[in-house]
């Protein structure tokens, strides 16, 4: 297996409503930024992969339009996942491992403001038995949160603490869409969107884009930058049939923790793709993270660009390792309702 490094990462300022700006106009600045960080041009990129969801734009094959943001002449090797761009990163890693590329450009983008996100997300559930019932994203999350509470695994106080910690950490990310910090009274008395979740427990509707460049050891060495290695990456998915899942735990997350050997290194922090407050204490417990700092960037509760937020967990971990004394970071990305699919990434700072 080849060693693969993250070479650059950029994130647009996350906004609640990007107004007239279209996806191309959101993607282009971040792609130019990662090129600037590396000195690369599109000609130095062996493989390009993006993550987005056509239902967000409301048009079939809308992701193809996004390609207008990057240079596609001479023709490029390119692919797309109808998922968070963390999975575009995964595909790029496979491409490099197979020897098809030395470097890859990854970007993810999402504009949630034009539609009704909780119901747009419904269309990503099983189209035969689930989506015709129109279960919205928030209600499905609430189902899981309520179950955890009923089982004594979660309290409103846990959720409040996760929320306030995230909002307070958002000061570390100049691109965060900073949301209001409620008092405990405000929090506890807020109306439910879907019991036990109120607006405070849900990541804000966000528009934006992010980009990343990865490469082999050779590509990393040429740049002479601080080396941040993708030491381990795994993902797994549970069934789309809710009735067949035990929502009070996550086989996927527990299994991934074992696969990346979480206990084999001294973890300094974790960036989790948690779109609801309850998911932070939930995953902390599942991975036995103790009192490790979670979401020092503020995480999705302080700005959640659909189809980019998972890549952002990885990108923010990369930035944190680069700019601190930390050595080992854990990044998490998720997809589907109630943390159906997950990815864990172990990032490591390599000192030559």
């Amino acid at each position: 297996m080849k060693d693969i490094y993250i070479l650059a990462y950029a994130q647009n300022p996350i906004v609640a409503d990007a107004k007239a700006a279209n996806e191309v106009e959101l993607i282009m600045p971040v792609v130019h930024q990662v090129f600037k960080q590396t000195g690369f041009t599109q000609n130095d990129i062996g493989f390009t992969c993006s993550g987005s969801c056509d239902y967000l734009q409301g048009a079939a094959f809308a992701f193809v339009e996004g390609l207008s943001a990057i240079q596609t002449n001479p023709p490029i090797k390119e692919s797309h996942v109808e998922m968070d761009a963390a999975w575009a990163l995964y595909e790029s890693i496979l491409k490099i491992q197979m020897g098809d590329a030395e470097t890859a450009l990854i970007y993810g983008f999402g504009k949630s403001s034009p539609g009704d996100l909780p119901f747009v997300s419904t269309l990503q559930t099983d189209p035969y038995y689930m989506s015709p019932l129109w279960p919205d994203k928030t209600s499905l999350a609430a189902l899981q949160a309520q179950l955890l509470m009923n089982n004594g695994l979660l309290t409103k106080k846990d959720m409040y603490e996760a929320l306030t910690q995230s909002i307070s950490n958002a000061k570390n990310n100049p691109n965060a869409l900073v949301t209001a910090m409620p008092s405990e009274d405000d929090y506890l008395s807020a109306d439910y969107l879907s019991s036990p979740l109120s607006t405070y427990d849900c990541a804000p509707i966000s528009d934006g884009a992010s980009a990343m460049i990865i490469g082999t050891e050779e590509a990393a060495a040429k740049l002479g930058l601080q080396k941040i290695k993708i030491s381990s990456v795994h993902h797994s998915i549970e069934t789309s049939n809710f009735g067949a899942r035990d929502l009070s735990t996550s086989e996927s997350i527990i299994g991934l923790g074992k696969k990346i050997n979480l206990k084999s290194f001294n973890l300094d922090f974790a960036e989790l793709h948690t779109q609801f407050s309850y998911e932070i204490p939930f995953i902390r417990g599942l991975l036995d993270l103790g009192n490790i700092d979670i979401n020092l960037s503020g995480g999705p509760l302080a700005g959640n660009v659909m189809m980019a937020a998972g890549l952002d967990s990885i990108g923010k971990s990369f930035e944190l390792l680069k700019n601190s004394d930390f050595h080992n970071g854990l990044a998490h990305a998720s997809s589907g309702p109630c943390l159906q699919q997950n990815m864990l990434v172990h990032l490591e700072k390599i000192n030559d």
Partner: protein
Amino acid sequence: MSEEKKDFFVSDISLSYQYTAGNATTRFLNKVAEGKLVAQKCPKCSAVYVPPRGSCPRCGVATEEELELPDTGAVESFTIVHIPIPGNPIVPPYVSAMIRLDGADISFLHLIQEIDLADIRIGMRVQAVWKDKSDWGTTLENIKWFKPTGEDDVDPSVFKFKE
């Protein structure tokens, strides 16, 4: 049969969106509402795009410079439509054509009328026929169709995208 057990139900799928055209295309559409066709030029390769999407996909850069193009051009390609499309108010047969405006490096789809269908050809010179000014909006439908100008045809080699 009236007591037949129903083992299915119909669930409509409908979502509404507030569509945005993009900053660059918005500027174009606002000019169209004034009867002007404003293209955008690539700062690297000088390709001229109309309608503009704000980027040159060949170079991967934003197209900031704007220039007004005439409402004349030539037919780059066309098809004669004989089959009615549900919801389309245009009665077949009619011509859908890719129109390359003078000075542009890409073409866009529009209608050609005021001509015998048998006379349509690639390279034919055409000009826009605009709706009454009082009916203008932020749409290329401000142009009803294109009609032949009667000028000499252009050589199709001019449609090659410039290097």
